[in-house]
């Protein structure tokens, strides 16, 4: 069932001029959505990013025989947990990478802890991964709903959007996004004038948008994701809601969503991200390499996968093994830095702390290319972006 890719086993043996310091087999399993709503933001791109990391780490030269396999969890927790178990029990996988969709990620976090692997979470957003259901072997790398709420919620409120109305996707993820954002809005001196729970998934948002409009709010917060967000934004423009002066705040939007909407429809929308391809020369180079294989620009999930795998491989090299607890401990003790994510420090609860950025979608006039879509508004320092650590989740203190 798995696409296999043996990397550099032969090469590793040949290339080393001197004696190899060590000879360790490492197997990484990229588990994500390859056919559903998250196939574009994660999918095959995360496999490509993982391979790029293995390549750039020069794993073969350092005596690591890294193999990358992948599978589709179809956004179903039972399918995902079945694969994860099989990987650990049978296929000798040492770490599971990515796993968008919180319900699957929570299941994988549990299994990973039981089997002493490492879970490098880039795709999922749920803060539960490092709070209510924290595990010593979970490393939550790229973003979480709290960071998105902190970024977008705070910036928009401080810029004058005091009164908020939420369109909330009626499931756990949507509610946690709404709750996180509401707190931030209130802390920043705003108020929440109302919210409506929208059945998920939905195609027609007109009724809910109209309710939002008549609430007299300044900002309509979209506590949803993927196709729902895209539809809501399109229909808000169709019903003249943005033109009438109300602002939209997308709480979980990826560059691919903006690309699908086009600058014309999405212009002015503010969003929080951990990564944007067009930041500096290094991110542009890296993204160009990614694009060669995928024909699209990388999302922050892809960039996060790359960085997390790099840090993981560093840990394998340093500890000389693949023991989950040891690796996770090493990753928390040692900082990491690269061009994609900047400086990263993994906390005791597994939360990777790094800067987040607030972006605004360019107008069609400003945009010079298909993917020239965002401009940076501000930087949210890592220590402000994420929720504080819960004491009971600090696995570094004994």
């Amino acid at each position, binding site marked *: 069932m798995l696409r296999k890719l043996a990397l550099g086993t032969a090469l590793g043996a040949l290339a080393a001029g001197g004696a190899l310091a060590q000879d360790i087999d490492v197997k990484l399993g990229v588990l994500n959505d390859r*056919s559903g709503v998250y196939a574009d933001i994660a999918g095959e791109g995360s496999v490509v990013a993982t391979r790029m990391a293995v390549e750039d780490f020069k794993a073969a030269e350092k005596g690591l025989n890294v193999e990358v396999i992948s599978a589709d969890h179809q956004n179903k927790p039972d399918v995902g*947990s*079945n694969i994860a178990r099989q990987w650990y029990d049978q296929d000798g996988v040492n770490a599971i990478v990515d796993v968008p969709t919180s*319900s699957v990620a*929570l*299941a994988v976090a549990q299994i990973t802890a039981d089997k002493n692997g490492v879970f490098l979470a880039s795709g999922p957003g749920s803060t539960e991964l490092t709070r209510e259901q924290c595990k010593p072997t979970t490393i939550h790398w790229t973003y979480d709903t709290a960071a998105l709420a902190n970024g977008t919620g705070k910036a928009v409120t401080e810029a004058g959007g005091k009164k908020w109305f939420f369109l909330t996707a009626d*499931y*756990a993820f949507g509610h946690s996004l709404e709750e996180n954002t509401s707190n931030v809005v209130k802390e920043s001196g705003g108020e929440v004038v109302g919210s409506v729970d929208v059945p998920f998934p939905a195609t027609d948002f007109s009724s809910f948008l109209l309710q939002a409009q008549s609430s007299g709010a300044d900002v309509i917060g979209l506590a949803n994701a993927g196709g729902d967000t895209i539809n809501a934004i399109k229909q808000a423009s169709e019903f003249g809601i943005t033109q009438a002066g109300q602002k939209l705040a997308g709480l979980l939007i990826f560059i691919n969503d903006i690309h699908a909407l086009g600058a014309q429809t999405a212009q002015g929308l503010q969003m929080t991200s951990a990564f944007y391809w067009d930041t500096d020369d290094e991110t542009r180079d890296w993204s160009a390499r990614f694009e060669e294989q995928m024909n699209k620009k990388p999302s922050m999930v892809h960039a996060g996968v790359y960085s997390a795998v790099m840090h993981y491989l560093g840990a394998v090299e340093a500890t000389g093994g693949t023991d989950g607890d040891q690796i996770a401990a090493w990753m928390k003790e040692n900082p990491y830095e690269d061009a994609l994510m900047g400086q990263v420090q993994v906390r005791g609860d597994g939360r990777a702390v790094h800067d987040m950025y607030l972006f605004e979608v360019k107008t069609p006039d400003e945009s010079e290319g298909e993917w020239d879509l965002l401009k940076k508004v501000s930087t949210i320092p890592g220590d402000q972006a994420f929720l504080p650590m819960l004491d009971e989740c600090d696995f570094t203190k004994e």
Partner: protein
Amino acid sequence: MAMSDTGITRPAAQQAGMPMLHKIIFLVLLVFLAVLPFMVYPVFAMKLMCFALFAAAFNLLLGFGGLLSFGHAAFFGSASYVAAHAAKVWGLTPELAVLSGTVAAAILGLAIGALAIRRQGIYFAMVTLAFAQMVYFVALQAQFTGGEDGIQSVPRGDLFGLISLRDNVSLYFFVLAVTFGGVLMLYRIVHSPFGQVLKAIRENEPRAISLGYNVNRYKLMVFTLSATFAGLAGATKSQVFQLASLTDVHWTMSGEVVLMTLLGGMGTIFGPLVGAAIIVTMQNYLATFGAWVTVIQGVIFVIGVMLFREGIVGVIARWIKRPL
């Protein structure tokens, strides 16, 4: 609904015990299942058995009761939720958790069945669909189901408080006992006098009424039994995967069990087991093909309806001229 004009071979009444052929098949199956966890991944094998029981339970209603339910996921899924909740929150031992899930499905089956059996054919299917959608809605909204996340990290616990099921192999034999027992019970029901009356009703309802049978009582009983065994399958599955999720109650799950039964051969004893085995294996090993799995399933559906309305086992039964 009259399914009698479909050309499916009808097994002759088996009054006196289990025929030798069936005994042999069950025995071979049992031996095969006993060594299976040492050949393939045990969790996969357990999933297979749970779905085999689910399909067999569904087949009791469709193949022997002549009633097409389009909402069987409701029983499978709600039992899975209740069993997961019982094991995780109430801290019940696995056998009690499974039992409570099964009881919940039985009660739900009785309630939905009482309303649904008043309608026939496609209307019956639609009523079951409607109720299944409502169950789905409850699963999405209720607090204890955990919404989109489902109930996660269900502990595996100790059987009767004694035998640890944390090990895959010991859990496997628990699941084997439950599902195999379930299938044997279904076999017994089909071949009991009750099963004979069911057959009579399916073939000619007015005639059964004129013979003095309370048709609705029989229909309600078979519906409830089918729901109960579907629940048993769902409850067991939640212990295997240690989670209960919306997938189990979604209407596509109801569609999948129809597919399994149809593919294997409805109205046969072994058909649903074969159908479930094929579909689950396919989903497992074709997972990397993404949406192609859906396409392949669709193709099987179409070929099944066009060419093999008797299903795989039905065709074999016709060849060897023995009911299977």
